[in-house]
């Protein structure tokens, strides 16, 4: 099977969507740039023309709102934010507008827009170029939020997002762009709201999002060498999220660890842990555990970055504690 990088898979999904559907277009900052979006949008403007691949002024609110309007008119826009931090200028069109439309008008108007937000952090960029804000948007009814961690899902979830019919936030992580994986050439969809069990296990359940799902698999491999069999669940979608798969795993393992590379307090990991304590309580044989970022902005200096971000090591350490408890 063909191997592609995560970034190549995103690009291929865009290219196939643009080629296959005249309603699809791309709008956002840096889409004509050779480097802004890594290679994930490389030369799409040359291939599909600058009327359908539109780089924009520095106007996040109106650009996002324009994508919402175009979606209401029946187009299938993908609006791109090269950093999630910048998208905070567009919360009104996303949360107040796109998310409310279907409900406000009892389904008479749909907003099939994809809002792509890249998590782009590390490299001594500092606090304003680092945020992972999935929790803010997963809280909002009317939005869907997906976070692919593999090249396969990166392609399949983008295609599903474009055809979902609802506003879907597609969150990709630059730290995954070089991950390699099998990606079928034809278009295919990955269902929104379905998790993937990346590794079966009986001793504890690790529920992870995006970059942390990759780290969790690495951690699980190490744990296995210590005889700890962790089941790793990659949520893939955080809104809606696959409660049944998670609860079923907890009923099997009795232990839950949630790994999400975002601030701990009020992060999405809290929702998973809280739901487990509500609906799988009897199955829990130990306290739930969260591996998240500390409640601090991202620092800049490399030694501080190393202390701030979480990796397979942190997941493995927390899992050992949990398995022992």
């Amino acid at each position, binding site marked *: 099977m063909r191997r592609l990088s995560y970034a190549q898979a995103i690009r291929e999904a865009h290219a196939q969507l643009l080629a296959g559907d005249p309603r699809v277009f791309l709008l956002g900052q840096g889409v004509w740039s050779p480097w802004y979006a890594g290679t994930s949008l490389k030369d799409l403007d040359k291939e599909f023309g600058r009327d359908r691949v539109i780089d924009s002024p520095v106007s996040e609110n109106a650009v996002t709102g*324009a994508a919402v309007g175009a979606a*209401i008119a029946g187009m299938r826009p993908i609006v791109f934010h090269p950093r999630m931090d910048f998208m905070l200028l567009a919360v009104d069109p996303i949360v107040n507008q796109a998310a409310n439309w279907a409900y406000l008008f009892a389904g008479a108007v749909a907003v099939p827009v994809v809002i792509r937000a890249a998590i782009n952090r590390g490299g001594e960029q500092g606090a304003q170029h680092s945020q992972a804000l999935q929790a803010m948007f997963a809280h909002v009814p009317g939005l869907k939020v997906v976070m692919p961690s593999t090249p396969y899902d990166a392609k399949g979830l983008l295609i599903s997002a474009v055809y979902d019919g*609802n506003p879907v936030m597609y969150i990709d992580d630059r730290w995954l762009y070089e991950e390699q994986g099998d990606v079928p050439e034809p278009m295919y969809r990955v269902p929104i709201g379905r998790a993937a069990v990346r590794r079966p296990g009986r001793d504890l359940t690790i529920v992870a999002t995006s970059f942390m799902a990759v780290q969790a698999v690495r951690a699980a491999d190490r744990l296995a060498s210590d005889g700890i069999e962790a089941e790793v669940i990659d949520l893939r979608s955080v809104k809606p999220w696959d409660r049944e798969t998670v609860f079923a795993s907890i009923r099997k393992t009795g232990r839950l660890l949630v790994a999400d590379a975002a601030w701990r307090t009020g992060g999405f990991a809290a929702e998973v842990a809280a739901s487990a304590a509500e609906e799988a309580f009897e199955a829990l044989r130990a306290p739930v555990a969260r591996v998240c970022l500390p409640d601090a902005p991202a620092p800049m200096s490399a030694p501080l970055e190393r202390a701030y971000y979480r990796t397979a090591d942190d997941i493995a350490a927390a899992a050992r504690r949990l398995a022992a408890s």
Partner: protein
Amino acid sequence: MGDHVTTSVVGPAAGAPTTAFLFGCWRDMLRIRMFEERAGELVEAGEIKTPCHLYIGQEAIAVGVCRALRREDYVWGGHRSHGHYLAKGGDLRAMMAELYGKATGCSRGRGGSMHLVAPEVGVYGTVPLVAATIPLAVGTALASRQRGDGRVSVAFLGDGATEEGHFHESMNLAALYRLPVLFIVENNFYASHMHLLERRRADNILAAADAHSVPGAVLDGNDVMAVYEAAARAAARARAGEGPTLLECRTFRWRGHVGPSWDMDVGVKRKDELKDWLPRDPVARLRARLAEAGVEEAAFTAAEAELRAEVEAAVEFARRSPYPDPATLLDHVYTAREAEG
């Protein structure tokens, strides 16, 4: 809606408007006026509880603009959009039912006065977040450019909305991409309790259009033909691919910011201004002009009777209609229909 002159009737190709056309404009304005006055009474009576921002005094703008549009053109509004909805051809009964929060309302009782919809005539949602629909109008215009469907998008906005940054961002995008969009600024000199000059140094909204290379004009917003003619020219430019236009229509709202009262948020200053504006009533002005042109009193009174009956029938319809079933509370948070095909 009986013989309500729908917006699909386009105005006189050129030259002087026919009396029939003018009469239709007058009737459309009066229809809005009567709806609003009745809605105001029903708010005072406590029958309608959803916050209503009445359009009384500004009718010439909605009617003048929408008369220059086609049924399939897009119209976007805000918190004060009863007039936009009606002028574009939205169902009057469905709006009245919406104000009552009934299941037969245009938004099925989910939206109320501040959230109106009539997709069949190009009203894809009016919402009260100030300036929120301006970028959406740019978006429908962008869709039209990409499809080449020849549609025009109209953003109705108030003078207050021009203070939101995304108004400026939107004009820049519209000019940059030469989009078929009309920015209709209804300058009624107030944003709730605040006069224009308490919110900006100068009464110069048009200068913002210039800053973004959007051609524009300042109009008497209480002269329906002045608005119609400017909007028709702007719509023609837009359809010809020549890009956006901003029209500042100067007008005045007669009632309080929200609700029917005449003086709720009226300071002394506003009282004096209102005195000046009442005589410029756009409905009465056109009626007088039509009378001069020979339209007989009977024609007016007949129309008034028809409209009164239409509005009353809508009230009855709304009263008789059922409330939404609480069991439907969680419906439509997401749309089921896939976006394809």
